[in-house]
């Protein structure tokens, strides 16, 4: 008997994330650090395994090295399987042609052989841009119950922001009668989350047709979904009402990190019933020193804190020296804030060193925005980095 998987997930992780500026100079957006010990991609991958989906193709294109290394054989997510598991799918050279992935639909189309190997009934399409916890199994159940050919996860967004999204116009039973990509005058505030479940045979059919269409931009939202709707296929929305946050901009990434703080956090990563799995740092417990003040903070293994940390998220192995102060900030793995330095309303990427007496960022109230320091750079002693400034090179001050 040929083995098969009922549902295969395809995770689009090729995005450059150019609006994250210095944070994605050398890495793909899904590999960006989040919430202390996580990377953005941990969320869809954990959702998959928690939903019982154990076959995931991860489509990479932009700066895939670190992402590939991070995912490895998939063991941290329990996705190292003899049949199934997580697989990195990169653009490749075929006999007839070779090309980069042109659009979201084209990326999936180019990996048809991967999906067909598992002979799936359903294909789940995901993106690596969002922080959320979602039970895809419940969505699949809904997909089966409605007998849909395609089910699109949807969330209500504030009406004034609706024109930034793909908007679903639906009937009372949740069936979709119109799909509008970033409409100027939205008719509803039900936004597509970019999470689709297709009945596999329909997906394969429409991907073939889309590939043959020279006028198509090879995009799910712009081409494939409208084509299916026009052909009269059954398309349903699936309502999701939990936390869902695009972390594609500096400010949304900062906000999502802050959402983890507080006694009753907006988003809880510590839920034992829906664990977020990740590749764990090999580090001892964090040490909080005699003179330290740590309040309203998330701190990860291997940190050494002798200074003040307030309203902030620290990834593993961050060092905050005595007399240093970190407020309203996100510090990624291995960042060092030396004695007397101050970091306010900032995001500091991995292994960046802030020398003594330097001041990075300005109070949120100053209105100048979030300061961003890229990886592996040094901010010189006594240097001042203004609010909203983005640096990806060493900086000694003016």
């Amino acid at each position, binding site marked *: 008997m040929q083995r098969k998987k009922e549902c295969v997930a395809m995770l689009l992780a090729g995005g450059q994330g150019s609006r994250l500026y210095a944070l994605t100079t050398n890495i793909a957006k899904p590999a960006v650090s989040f919430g202390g*010990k996580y990377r953005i991609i941990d969320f869809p991958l954990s959702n998959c395994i928690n939903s019982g989906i154990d076959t995931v193709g991860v489509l990479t294109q932009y700066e895939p090295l670190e992402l590939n290394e991070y995912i490895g054989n998939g063991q941290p997510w329990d996705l190292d399987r003899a049949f199934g598991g997580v697989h990195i799918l990169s653009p490749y050279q075929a006999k007839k042609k070779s090309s980069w992935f042109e659009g979201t639909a084209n990326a999936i189309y180019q990996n048809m052989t991967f999906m067909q190997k598992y002979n799936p009934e359903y294909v789940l399409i995901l993106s690596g841009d969002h922080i959320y916890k979602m039970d895809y199994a419940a969505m699949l159940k809904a997909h089966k119950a409605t007998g849909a050919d395609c089910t699109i996860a949807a969330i209500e967004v504030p009406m004034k922001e609706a024109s930034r999204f793909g908007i679903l116009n639906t009937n009372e039973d949740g069936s979709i009668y119109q799909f509008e990509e970033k409409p100027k005058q939205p008719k509803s505030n039900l936004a597509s989350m970019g999470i689709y479940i297709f009945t596999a045979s329909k997906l394969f059919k429409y991907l073939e047709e889309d590939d043959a269409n020279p006028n198509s931009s090879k995009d799910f939202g712009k081409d494939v979904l409208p084509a299916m709707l026009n052909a009269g296929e059954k398309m349903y929305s699936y309502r999701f009402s939990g936390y869902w946050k695009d972390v594609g901009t500096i400010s949304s990434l900062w906000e999502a990190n802050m959402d983890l703080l507080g*006694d009753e956090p907006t988003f809880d*990563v*510590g839920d034992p019933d829906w664990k977020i799995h990740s590749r764990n740092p090999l580090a*001892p417990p964090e040490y*909080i020193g*005699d003179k330290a003040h740590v309040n309203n903070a*998330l*701190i990860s293994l291997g940190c050494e804190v002798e200074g003040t940390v307030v309203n902030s998220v620290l990834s593993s192995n961050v060092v905050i020296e005595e007399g240093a102060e970190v407020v309203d900030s996100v510090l990624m793995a291995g960042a060092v804030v030396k004695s007397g330095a101050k970091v306010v309303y900032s995001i500091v990427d991995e292994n960046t060193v802030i020398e003594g007496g330097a001041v990075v960022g300005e109070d949120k109230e100053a209105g100048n925005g979030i300061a961003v320091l890229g990886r592996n750079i040094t901010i010189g002693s006594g240097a001042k980095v203004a609010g909203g400034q983005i640096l990806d090179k060493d900086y000694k001050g003016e």
Partner: protein
Amino acid sequence: MANSAVGVIFSNIHDENIPELSRHRTMASIPYGGRYRLIDFALSNMVNAGITTVGVVTKYNYQSLLDHLGSGKDWDLARKDGGIILLPPYSDETDTPYSNRLEALKGITGFLNHRNEEYVVISDCDGIAHIDIADVIAYHEAKGADITMVCHEEAGKIDQSYFMTFATDEDGRIGSIKISPKTTANSKNDVYINIMVINREYLIGIIQDAVTRGLSSFGKDILTKHVDTMKLYAYKFGGYYAGVNSIQKYYQHSMELLDKNIRDELFGARDIYTKVRDSAPSKYSDSAVVKNSLISDGCVIEGTVENCILFRGVKVGKGSVVKNSIVMQDSVIGSGVELDSVITDKNVVIRDRRHLAGCAELPYFIGKGRMI
């Protein structure tokens, strides 16, 4: 070079030293340092020396050890050839499980026979140290020793029921071995720290000989008796060593981890591997006051924590003050609680407004899963 050695770890020997913590588990699986078990130090020393096959000898109470080790993947020891190999006691109708180290070794001769490495590194789980095993093996080879025993200089009186000291010549060769000699406050002794390198075939020979002659003690019947004919060498380890042979020592050495120099020596240069649990980073609330403490992942701290070691998933409620204490995995401390010099085992619940105190010499111990 390192692939020339296979590791053997004794998980149960010394259990009787810490009955409080080994009632439900092996010595090897006693929690230590916030997120580790004692075996992690012995295993990591071996893995860091490039050893890829480690036999773990067990006797009883080894459920928690099995749970901790799993397939061995967290130590990079889930291997096709070798990896972690559990060696539970072997006994047939006529035998009972081993009662001493020699019998335990006899039980694993099958394992030793099937390996082809030249050396065996044997280690117990009662010590915490960062020892370069590759260097010990190189020393063993350079000396052409039959057995190299790792020792650490202990100053002062040693209050242990069983220990071994050496006298060595200039070359490091052991001239005499004393078992549990009298020690004074002024004495300095090279004390064996239960790690040895031995030629594998030589070890098999010793075991067979001991079995035919009905010997029972590796120390008394073999090492001390043949110190003149065997080429026994001492490898002097000069770094930080914490021998955990009583609950007082356990407490004292655990607290030493609050010293940065000791932490740097144990964790800085190379990795100590342990089981991964996927806990969230620890959360410090607005009301948290944390000083001089080691905090593991998954903790939620709303109260005051000073001079403490908190293991994974510990909760400290509002208004509670926890000082000089070790709180193990998933223990929950309510609000308004005061703890001083307390060790709680795993999954302990301290209800609101309880006050408990021990002292540095005799920490107050609360057993696994108890509710106070």
